[in-house]
């Protein structure tokens, strides 16, 4: 395997995968999903993880985000060897370092936009006022201050995804992970969300790993990594 093929530019790596493997078992039958992934992603990268359906994109993203554990290999993310953390430590680590953006937004329907964004802050030591300021900032950033008292059902899909982005960044995480963030949006709203993510990367220095199979979406990233049947196929720098 040629390391150069996965050169994502210089810089200090924030995500380091060494020989990462993941298998599922159906009874005695091992189903390998990821096989020996080696990858370094520098701080401030914006990576689009691409590949055919079933190639293991979501599985890889979940491992990087610390919501799943590998069956082989080690991964160091934001300075922590994730295999060394127990479940509760891993939860605290996610709260501090990772922001999640999902395909179907996953907002809590009984909470207002404001309350949804505030949710991850409940786990921090921040007081009420400090939380309120952080939420207001995050909502201003996604340009939804005027919708903060709306409930998810009173928002359009694009607005819901922007609330979800505000929720993902409100704790000021180092990494944003997004699994098909535009998969449920029309072209116009998708553009808006992708523009927002681009600014989060360019202006705020967030490292972003985004799973997508949409070439237009992937074009917003700075690098594209292609997965094929559980192995890294190639990395491409996006020319703009």
């Amino acid at each position: 395997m040629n390391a150069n093929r996965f050169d994502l530019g210089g810089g200090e790596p924030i995500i380091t995968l060494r020989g990462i493997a993941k298998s599922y078992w159906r009874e005695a039958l091992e189903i390998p999903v990821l096989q020996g992934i080696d990858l370094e992603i520098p701080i401030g990268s914006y990576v689009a993880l691409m590949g055919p359906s079933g190639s293991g994109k979501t599985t890889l993203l979940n491992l990087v985000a610390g919501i799943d554990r590998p069956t082989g290999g080690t991964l160091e993310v934001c300075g922590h060897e994730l295999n060394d953390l127990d479940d509760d430590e891993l939860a605290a680590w996610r709260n501090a370092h990772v922001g999640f953006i999902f395909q179907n937004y996953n907002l809590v329907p009984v909470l207002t936009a404001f309350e949804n964004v505030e949710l991850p802050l409940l786990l921090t030591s921040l007081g009420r006022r400090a939380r309120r300021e952080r939420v207001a900032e995050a909502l201003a950033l996604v340009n939804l201050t005027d919708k903060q008292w709306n409930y998810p059902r009173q928002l359009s899909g694009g607005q819901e995804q922007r609330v979800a982005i505000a929720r993902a960044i409100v704790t000021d995480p180092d990494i944003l992970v997004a699994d098909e963030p535009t998969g449920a949006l029309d072209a116009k709203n998708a553009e808006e969300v992708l523009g927002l993510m681009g600014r989060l990367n360019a202006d705020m220095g967030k490292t972003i790993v985004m799973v997508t199979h949409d070439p237009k979406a992937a074009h917003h990233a700075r690098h594209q990594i292609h997965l094929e049947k559980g192995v890294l196929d190639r990395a491409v720098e996006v020319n703009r």
Partner: protein
Amino acid sequence: MRWLALIWKSLLRSRRRTLLIVGSLVLSVFTVAVLQSLLTTLDSITSNPNSGNRLAVRHKSGITQMLPRSYETFLRQQPEVETVCSLQWFGGYYQDPRNFFANFASDETTIFQTFREEFGLANLTEAQVKEYLRDGAGCIVGESLALKNGWKVGDVVPLTGTIFPINPRLTIRLIFKSSRPSDENVLHFHYKVLEEGVPRMKGLTGAFWVRVHRPEDIPRLIERVDRHFANSAYETLTETESAFNLAFVKMLGNISAIIQGITIAVVLAILIVTANTMGTAIRERGAEIAVFRAMGFSASRVLSLLLAEGVLLVGLGAALGLLLAQAAAGGVRSAMGAVMPFFADFEITSATALLCLAGALAVGLLSTFIPAYAATRRPITEGLRSVG
């Protein structure tokens, strides 16, 4: 937003669930509270603190059979005996059959001494007692009964007989106060009124109430009395007042067992309904639970939130049910207190309320814990996939 706000809002997410659980808890806590209070009330009849030195002598064949009043002579002769009083349940009502309260024909010469705690004899003057003894058509009533009917001394109370075919017109000569409200829901009149008005009752009584000097003498006396009248035309069954009252209550069937049975059935039914509803509600939230955990909520934190929701929901229903039962207790007191005097004491005691709340808490924890625990053990990735 605070934790409680989060729990509260999640609680209201499914109106169907909230209504179902709160509604069924209100109903079942209400039922259990009323039934348990009924039991407490029935227990209190058999645990009248003043009944320790009294015996009831009745016909061996049952409460409805009569004994000759002449037995009194033998009873009086026993050295352990202080007083003997003939007492017959009259079962009359005032104006309306529903306006029914305990009323007795009793031996006016010994009634005060035999039941001196119940009549608050220490607070009565000799003149008051004499007023009653002087008037053969007089009666005495408890204060709460008098208050309820607006009676005062000197008023005439026409009673309509239900067991006996007479309708005596009685003049209130004395209103007494006692320490237990149930003891005040009573009217007594001269035994002669019954004997003279109802020929078949001449020389007969339903029971003798015997007061002894020392409670220790009771077992010996019981044995001697029943042996003395054995093989006579009217064999006796002598028992403590508590036992007699219990027998009276038992006429209604084995109430205590029935009540406990119903209580257990209600608790089981509510457990099933709650567990099922909670289980469905939690399973529907698989994706949301996964999102919470992805954001950094630990499994135990999510479990606590879900448990808090369940307990709050069930606690809410239980509290409402208790309030309802409390309100109903007043109704039971006024409606049933007239029919059966001991219901004048009917109330939802704090012990009953605590029992219901503790039971509800247990149901809430139990019914939530199993599905909540299962939900938080599920891998996060699986929960996220369930969005579809």
